[in-house]
């Protein structure tokens, strides 16, 4: 019964997402729609980290490494083959393959906690300094110049199999939104499968999972690769939204905001980090345009405040609150019933006594 209730929640959210997809272009300005594609890419990144960290318990500080690799792989492939469909697949593949290699060393070496967080973050940072050094004409893959810190151009999406028909920004928005919704539903499904539940169990207690004869290294590697593939997909929509990919995708602050979305949205939920991405992006964007407060200042404060005061994040805290209120309501009604029964019994005994 609980299963079906959970699944109903997923469906409701997916339908809300679809409604947003259909109505947003009617209501919002053209420019906002273009920016939104980019934010959707970031939301998929947040979702991937929510999966890997919130459910897999893998503290991947450098999830942006896969996100950025996906973006670069897309831009380079699309420039070379002149179509976006193969390039999207390539982006997912490259991110997943890189995660498989890195993950092998991490999980089979039983690197965990702080070590894992720092190693993954360092990988992203090294990619940052690597890509920044690729400014010369000698750094090209096929026809695509990597372009150093200016980055490389990311071609727009086109109809599958028809490289000549480029999608309009609204269409790109539709595609990105549908990808996000599908990715979300996929993750919701995944965490309820046997595989997903074992991953959650490993998060809860590695030793117990091992004693139950699960090879935890394999499961961790599995969810790590799936998360990386999703992040790679996010990278595609991000770079298509901006029409460029620069080394900044690998930067320390990009890695930080991904973590902040998950912290704010809440570990252990999938929708929380997605919503947090949209909300915080809106917040920093409007702050940036006012130039009153520095974005780093705000993000840093948000992170510290959440770690100290709301360590569970917004969505789980709301759920907890709702649970407490429901329990109180249940307790109150039970008490009322009991009191009623007692008074009734009391009357009866009183009657008998007479």
């Amino acid at each position: 019964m609980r299963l079906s209730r959970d699944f109903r929640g997923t469906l409701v959210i997916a339908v809300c997402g679809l409604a947003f997809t259909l109505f947003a272009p009617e209501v919002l300005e053209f420019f906002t729609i273009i920016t939104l594609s980019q934010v959707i890419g970031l939301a998929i990144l947040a979702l991937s980290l929510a999966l890997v960290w919130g459910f897999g318990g893998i503290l991947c500080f450098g999830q942006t490494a896969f996100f950025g690799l996906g973006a670069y792989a897309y831009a380079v492939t699309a420039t070379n083959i002149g179509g976006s469909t193969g390039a999207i697949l390539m982006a997912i593949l490259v991110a997943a393959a890189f995660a498989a290699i890195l993950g092998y060393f991490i999980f089979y070496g039983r690197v965990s906690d702080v070590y894992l967080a720092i190693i993954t973050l360092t990988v992203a940072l090294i990619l940052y300094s690597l890509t920044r050094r690729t400014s010369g004409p000698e750094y090209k893959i096929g026809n695509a110049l990597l372009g150093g810190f200016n980055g490389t151009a990311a071609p727009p999406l086109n109809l599958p199999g028809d490289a000549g028909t480029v999608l309009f920004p609204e269409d790109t928005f539709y595609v990105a939104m549908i990808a996000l919704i599908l990715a979300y539903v996929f993750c919701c499904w995944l965490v309820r499968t046997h595989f997903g539940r074992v991953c959650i169990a490993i998060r809860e207690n590695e030793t117990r999972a091992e004693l139950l004869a699960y090879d935890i290294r394999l499961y961790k590697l599995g969810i790590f690769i799936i998360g990386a593939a999703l992040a790679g997909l996010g990278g595609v929509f991000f770079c298509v939204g901006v029409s460029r990919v620069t080394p900044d995708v690998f930067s320390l602050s990009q890695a930080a905001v991904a973590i902040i979305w998950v912290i704010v949205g809440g570990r252990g939920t999938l929708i929380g980090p997605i919503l947090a991405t949209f909300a915080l992006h809106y917040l920093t964007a409007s702050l940036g345009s006012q130039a009153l407060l520095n974005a780093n200042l705000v993000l840093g404060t948000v992170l510290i405040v959440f770690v100290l005061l709301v360590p569970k994040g917004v969505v789980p805290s709301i759920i907890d609150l709702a649970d407490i209120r429901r329990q109180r309501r249940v307790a109150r009604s039970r008490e009322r019933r009991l009191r009623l029964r007692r008074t009734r019994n009391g009357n009866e005994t009183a009657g008998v006594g007479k």
Partner: protein
Amino acid sequence: MDLVVSLALQILYGIANLALISLGLAIIFGMMRVINLAHGEFLMLGGYTVVIATNNGVNIWIAMLVLAPLVVGVIGVVVERLLIRWLYGRMIDTLLATWGLSLLIIGLVTSIFGASTATTISPPLGVITIGSYTSSGYEMFLIVVTVLLLVAVYATLKLTTLGLVARGTMQNAEMSSALGVSTSRIYMITFGLGAAVTGLAGGLLAPITGILPTIGAVYIAKAFITVISGGMAILAGTATASALLGGVNGIVAFLTGPTLGEVALLVTAIILLRLMPRGITGTLFRKSL
């Protein structure tokens, strides 16, 4: 022959540089099991201290060797009291909080001094020429300073009461607090000392790298790798990891250029952690400092 000597010196400088930027981080990690993600910003603050002080007429040597560690050390103590101590025992939250701190410091410095050095503070070029050292002469100086710094930390750990208590805390925090040692105070001093050493490193490196609010990012990847590869033992870890990674980096960079040098450094570290998940001193030299 000249080439060999010059290459050797270059590699030696690379190793010293890694040790210098990592030592403060290693002190905090070894004693408190905390990776300070605002480490790069502590380095940056050391650099700013030097630049601002010299622009106001303070002697560059006093600014680098006295003011930078002092200012950043004080900041470290304040940070520990206001932020870190609420999170003892919550390792991951501590990581996250220091990351927030990192962003906060970048934001603050950007708001106060602007996003680039050139606009608000006099050019760092002046800093490089003060003291009339050629750049290689300054590098020699940095190697010597790094060695002295390692010796100083060794002496502190080995000879002082603070060092004794600190070693005890490193081995077993619960045990020392049971023996009546205030771990809270030890942590505060440790964090302050780690920050001071970091500030010193940042100040010393400012003439070479120049300063920007975001300059921390240049250092931290290497500092993180060095400390993680080294493991818990502060000195042995930093020294062995710096030697290994700095050596690999230097040789590969000499053969192929700086880009692959950094990749080689990272790959070495990842393979190393596959073999020794707790770092070099988690497997070898376990009893060392």
